[in-house]
């Protein structure tokens, strides 16, 4: 092994030991009310973390804080940039933050209309991020879009249709394709299966699981659906009243819940 190759390997090993995103005592208050309080966790490359809890437990506030959409009242969030350096997200220039948002990150909204451009075609929706980073070849943009529509199981003949003409499940899949086209390292998902019927949900989850595995994505997924967390995530964070009540590997946490609230949550799942 050459010296250079050895060095690269060491660097790889070191960087695998470093978290991709590091959240430290993040608190967000709305006046006297607490959004989320004192949340800390790390996420490593290729890892899927589910944040679960009932509505109003601060899941979405936390997600918005991490994804630089809502500045936390206190605490730090640092992210390992592509050059390997850990940077505090709220110390970045706005321009850097926006570049991060549209290249290295993805954000899948619960309502696809929030994440898609409803008045431009599916192909343009998928190509937008590529055009934003400077791709200027129509033919190549189109073949990438076709490829991605295929990967998220949308009929490629519908490339020129607007998402308005798509069903809820198709819109959600299109939103996922649009986010993944720049090969992000970290994807945020806010209830990605909310509002879809069960069979469509199952198909979407299956697709997501495949993509996450193939692309080695790190994902932070916010959901109130424990089944979604069970299927997709490696680790879980259970929140109640803005605080983390339990944190651990998904299987351990669901099979052997420790905190009283988690026990309640797990036992509330309807059995068919």
């Amino acid at each position: 092994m050459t010296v250079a190759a050895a060095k690269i390997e060491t660097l790889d090993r070191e960087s695998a030991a470093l978290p991709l995103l590091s959240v430290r005592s993040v608190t967000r208050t709305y006046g006297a009310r607490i959004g989320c309080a004192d949340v800390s966790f790390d996420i490593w490359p290729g890892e899927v973390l589910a944040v679960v809890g009932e509505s109003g437990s601060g899941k979405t506030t936390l997600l918005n804080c991490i994804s630089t959409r809502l500045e936390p009242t206190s605490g730090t969030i640092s992210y390992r940039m592509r050059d390997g350096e850990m940077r505090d997200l709220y110390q970045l220039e706005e321009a850097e933050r926006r570049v991060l948002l549209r290249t290295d990150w993805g954000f899948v909204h619960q309502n696809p209309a929030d994440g898609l451009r409803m008045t431009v075609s599916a192909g343009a929706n998928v190509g937008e991020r590529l055009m934003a980073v400077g791709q200027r070849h129509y033919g190549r943009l189109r073949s990438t879009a076709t490829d991605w529509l295929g990967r998220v199981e949308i009929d490629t003949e519908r490339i020129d249709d607007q998402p308005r003409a798509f069903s809820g499940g198709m819109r959600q899949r299109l939103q996922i394709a649009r986010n993944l086209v720049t090969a992000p390292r970290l994807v945020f998902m806010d209830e990605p299966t909310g509002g879809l019927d069960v069979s469509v949900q199952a198909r979407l989850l299956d697709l997501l699981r495949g993509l996450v595995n193939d692309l080695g994505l790190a994902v932070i997924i916010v959901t109130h659906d424990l089944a979604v967390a069970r299927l997709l995530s490696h680790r879980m964070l259970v929140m109640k009243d803005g605080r983390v009540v339990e944190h651990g590997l998904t299987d351990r946490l669901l099979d052997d819940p420790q905190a009283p609230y988690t026990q309640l949550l797990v036992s509330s799942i309807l059995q068919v």
Partner: protein
Amino acid sequence: MTAHARTSSYNFAYLDEQTKRMIRRAILKAIAIPGYQVPFASREMPMPYGWGTGGVQVTAAILGPKDVLKVIDQGADDTTNAVSIRKFFQRVAGVETTTRTADATIIQTRHRIPEAPLKQGQVLVYQVPIPEPLRFLEPRETETRKMHALEEYGLMHVKLYEDIARNGHIATTYAYPVKVEGRYVMDPSPTPKFDNPKMHMSEALQLFGAGREKRIYALPPHTEVVSLDFEDHPFEVQRFDKPCALCGAERVYLDEVVLDDRGGNMFVCSDTDHCESRRAEGLRGALSGEVAP
């Protein structure tokens, strides 16, 4: 060329001197940052929005007693908008007016750039309805300003992509977005894209005024203006099959004139001055015998 008696109850060129100073400051800033939209305190003018209130204010601010003014609307000197604005400045400024491009020092225009190349010392003032090129893609002003500030212009190509996806080619024919000096993306107002290449490295100063939207922007002389496109779908201007039916000019922008109710039509120069001066030189088109007065 004719000089006119000025109506003395108005200040020279209608606007008061403080307003003109304010507009000139905006113009200077616009010239300093080519393509950047400078906000200004647009005034009410004695004409409705959409009739050129922005262009009129810019013209009023830069007009001097020795200037010679030409006003065109769709390339023509004799349409309502052009005639009324020309009369307006005759009354309130008493300046000389002309229809000849070469004689004018200030040309106020809606939609067209004259066919004759502009010279150093001339100023072209555009009437702009919507100055923001990103507006139809991003309705939030806060967001479009941020996009300009951070040079996030990917969205502009989304629009062109949609054009090709729907029509097989870039079907935007007017208000075709341009990039100025490699920095700001600018809407060249509703001029046909045929005129976009004339903006590039023009010797004349080009000023854009949007009255309702309260914005002024500018292209100083010798500014690089590049029309946006894709590598495999390069920018192209409109082409016409036939020359002008009156003067036989080729490679100019033509207007369709309907002749009868049986589908008869002819294509004539949109720039009336260009057409008239060619005919004065004895040049004739296919239909000039029957139609010319």
